[in-house]
């Protein structure tokens, strides 16, 4: 009986060591990730790039398509998250203004009215 107790203890110890190694010391290295997994500051910078382009071309459909890189999240939500981060950090006022303009424009954006690509 005593042997079984010791056996279970070392099994649990092994599991703990395995988890430590697999989660902390040498976790699974992910490559070929998607933009949705990017760190928030990189995501925000991408959204800012979209806002900069929108400032120049005023093409809301194109901006929405560019934001679709983040998956199913609605464009308004993506920009809102970016604005929150930009305000917290904070980004330069001019950059926050660009994000704000894009967010305002997206409020009126209707995906069903988007012209289909040829």
């Amino acid at each position: 009986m005593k042997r079984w107790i010791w056996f279970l203890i070392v099994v649990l110890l092994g599991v703990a060591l395995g988890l430590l190694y697999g989660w902390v010391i040498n976790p699974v290295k992910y490559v070929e990730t998607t933009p949705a997994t990017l760190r928030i500051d990189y995501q925000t910078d991408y959204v800012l790039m979209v806002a900069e382009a929108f400032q120049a071309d005023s093409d809301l459909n194109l901006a929405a398509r560019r934001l679709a890189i983040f998956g199913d999240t609605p464009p308004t939500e993506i920009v809102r998250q970016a604005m929150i981060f930009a305000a917290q950090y904070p980004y330069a006022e001019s950059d926050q203004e660009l994000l704000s303009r894009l967010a305002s424009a997206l409020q009126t954006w209707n995906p069903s009215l988007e012209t289909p690509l040829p």
Partner: protein
Amino acid sequence: MRRDERGPWYLLTGLIIGLILGLVYAWLISPREYRDTYPADLRASFKDQFRAMIAVAYTANGNLPRALDRLEYLGDENIARSLAEQAQRTLAEGNSPPEAQALGLLAVAVGQGATPATLISTKSSTPLTAIPTSPGSIQTTPFESPVPASILTTEPSPSAVSTSPTESATRIALATGTPLPTRTPTPTLGAPFVIKEKNFICDQKLVGPLLQVLVEDQSGAPLSSVEAIVTWDGGEDHFFTGLKPELGNGYSDFVMTPGVVYTIRLAEGSEIVLDLTPSECETPSGSRYWGSWLLRFARP
């Protein structure tokens, strides 16, 4: 008594079983959630989208230091080459010519080298000297480094986006062969570009029969992002100068197919060069190889 003689091997067995179970759980069943990844880890297609977005933003704001900061996220070994290659691919696919042009413009600007930027922290308003952030340095505590480019106010550096030449097309004009008889270029009234040079080049280092195009302004400075249109019986292709910055910002080339007769002009308007076809050259030892055409367009 007999049991005790077996020793503590059962403990080692248990430890190994536990380790295996732990690793299977940590690596396969429930791997650590992958959040907070870096652009350098993105799938290639997403990297291309990210790179294209950087180029489009650059054409919108003209801020080269910011574009360079962003490009470093992607961890490309040769940033200018990655941009130029993607520009060529995008152009070939024909999906988004403006995007291709933006990538080409940024490739040219990067190829010319970024000027040092003065970065101003929005928190302290203290001028800081821009220190290039190596891609490796992004593995840090969140929001420590790199400082997101977007929070930096950079001084515009007009010189960085000018089209002044820094490199020349050294690959061309190594040897000038005898031009084959062709028609005289047809002058176009009011054409902003005229033919200044038309030479048949015999150079074994050139791969394939090339149609090389150099475009310059009045002062002889190379012009990038100039669209050239090459046509042949049943086909047409477009290409831009500056997508191979290592050969010069006004340089572009097109691989010709033997036996096909080409006509070339610049989209902005130029003299039209007719009847360009690949011809062979011969070495002193008698071996034959394809020569190339070199055309130099310039503003009058």
